[in-house]
């Protein structure tokens, strides 16, 4: 009896607000067609897919593609490179925006502060293609400005784009250059919420600037820092292909190939669709697992959670 009644009110509600559902329709269609429909294509990770036979006609092969992935020459390499790039990005890149926001917050004049912020955002608006183009130009062993500087200081030029050991630094430092100013926005926003009376009280008690930063401003940032850290840890295996593909060449491939670029290469260059889908699936399952673990740890420790 009750359920009939709720059903009736539900119908009545939907009828009364049918326009709202029409307003949602294009977006719902878009995610159904472009996000949900491809999910069903994941089944080809367990098949030997061929264009002619299609999703259903292609024969099942069980876990064969995964077995091939785990046994392949590249598997340990791409796992190691992915972890190297993301851990190094985290260790080097994560503290910079926090430090930047705390220090720039000390700038007295609003005008100076704003100019500083404007310039620090600039690299964010440069496309990945242009960023990588600049990196390649600047690191050129014979005429790149970085090597010209090294030579001016009496050093030997370094072939940054060819040397295996250099790739991670090129990748991480160019990322810090592009992203640190932009990444500081969220901390700037949090700092604008610091209670001025707390700072005044600290001054009356004779706190130095450094002490005010450490004991008033920094604690305000902690919840934001934790959430950002969880998000970053969640993408530990999620190094994207966009930038790596642009910086990659045949000489640095052993240290630049990551899971996502491997998925791209196997799928869209070698047309090994099933194998590539299996590698991609492995990657996203790992990503989801890492995100859940990071979120659980953060909830246990600090009560901050993404969901």
């Amino acid at each position, binding site marked *: 009896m009750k359920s009939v009644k709720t059903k009736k009110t539900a119908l009545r509600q939907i009828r009364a607000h049918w326009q709202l559902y029409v307003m949602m329709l294009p*977006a719902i269609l*878009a995610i159904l067609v*472009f996000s949900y429909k491809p999910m*069903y294509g994941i089944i080809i990770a367990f098949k030997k897919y061929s264009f002619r036979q299609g999703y259903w006609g292609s024969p099942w092969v069980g876990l064969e593609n995964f077995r091939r992935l785990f046994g392949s020459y590249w598997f340990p390499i791409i796992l190691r490179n992915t972890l190297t790039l993301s851990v190094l990005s985290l260790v080097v890149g994560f503290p910079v925006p926090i430090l*930047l926001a705390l220090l720039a917050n000390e700038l007295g004049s609003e005008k100076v502060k704003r100019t500083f912020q404007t310039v620090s955002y600039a690299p964010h608006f440069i496309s990945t293609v242009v960023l990588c183009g600049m990196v390649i130009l600047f690191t050129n062993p*014979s005429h790149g400005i970085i090597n010209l500087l090294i030579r001016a200081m009496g050093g030997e030029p370094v072939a940054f784009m060819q040397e295996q050991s250099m790739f991670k630094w090129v990748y991480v430092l160019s990322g810090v250059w592009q992203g640190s100013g932009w990444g500081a926005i969220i901390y700037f926003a949090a700092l604008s919420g610091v209670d001025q009376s707390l700072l005044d009280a600290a001054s009356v008690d004779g706190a130095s*600037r450094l002490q005010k930063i450490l004991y008033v401003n920094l604690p305000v940032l902690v919840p934001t820092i934790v959430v950002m850290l969880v998000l970053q840890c969640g993408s530990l295996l999620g190094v994207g292909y966009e930038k790596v593909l642009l910086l990659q060449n045949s000489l640095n491939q052993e240290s630049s190939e990551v899971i996502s670029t491997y998925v791209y290469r196997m799928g869209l260059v070698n047309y090994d*669709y099933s194998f590539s889908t299996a590698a991609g699936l492995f990657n*996203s399952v790992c990503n989801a697992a890492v995100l859940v673990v990071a979120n659980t740890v953060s909830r246990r420790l600090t009560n901050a959670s993404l969901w």
Partner: protein
Amino acid sequence: MKRKHRMKIGLRDRVFLGIVYFVLAVYFLLMLYPLLYVASASFSDPKAVAGGEMVLWPVRPSLSAYRYVFHYKEIWVGYANTVFYTVAGTLINLAVTLPCAYALSRRDLYGRGVLLALFMVTMYVSGGLIPGYLNLNDLGMVNTRWALLLPGAVSVYNLIVARTFFANTIPWELQEAAWLDGCSDAKAFVHIVLPLSAPIVAVLAIYYGVGHWNAYFNAMIYIRDRALYPLQVFLREILTQGQFMAQALQGGAAYTTEEMAVMIKQADTANMIKYAVIVVSAAPMMAVYPFIQKYFTKGVMIGSVKG
């Protein structure tokens, strides 16, 4: 005694502030220098750039690089395409995202939780590269402009940001008054909600617009017809794939002195053109973003509010 302590604090603060200003100044220069260098290099004699003679300001200024660029027809084809993708793509994004975000912001929407979950899931789960590619292939969108306009029609992150904005800033009483006056949901959205939402429309337009302007990957994998390429794909060819020189030299091939001279001259000119191309492609963004940066901060702030 107390006064002495005060003075010590004052001195320590001044020293600390000095360090802060120094660190920020170094960071400021690191952000700005590469951009200035590219701009100056594009106006300089290529020999001065390659020889390290040009440090900051153009040396023996000339416009010859730009003369090459203006005669490079494909760049302008790419430019026109990018303008089209950015304008058309952003309009589609807004038309799909805003109405849906408004509907999802209505607390009287029946089934809101389920619908929200339907969208949120796609942030964490996706079919991956190959299923996505095969999906667009099945839809007949590969090598058409639609491949760059429709698949990303709604970004769930932006949808949530807009929903949060509508839920928190549009007074509920105002909407109620409109319904009492016989205003339908769609009319209320167009005539009451949208006029009050200029900041969020600006934020979304900028987020989506910058994304379209700077994207290259989807165009690289979905578009084969060069007449449909956006600028970034041409830039990729010019900036990151012109490594023929390096490879030729690496190969240790034996060239005569004249051949080498010709190649070096070509390489210098090529580099000069690269710098000019970077300037031409990044100039619009660099010119526009300082004026809209307040909206960016706003977007990040709205986005960080959970709700």
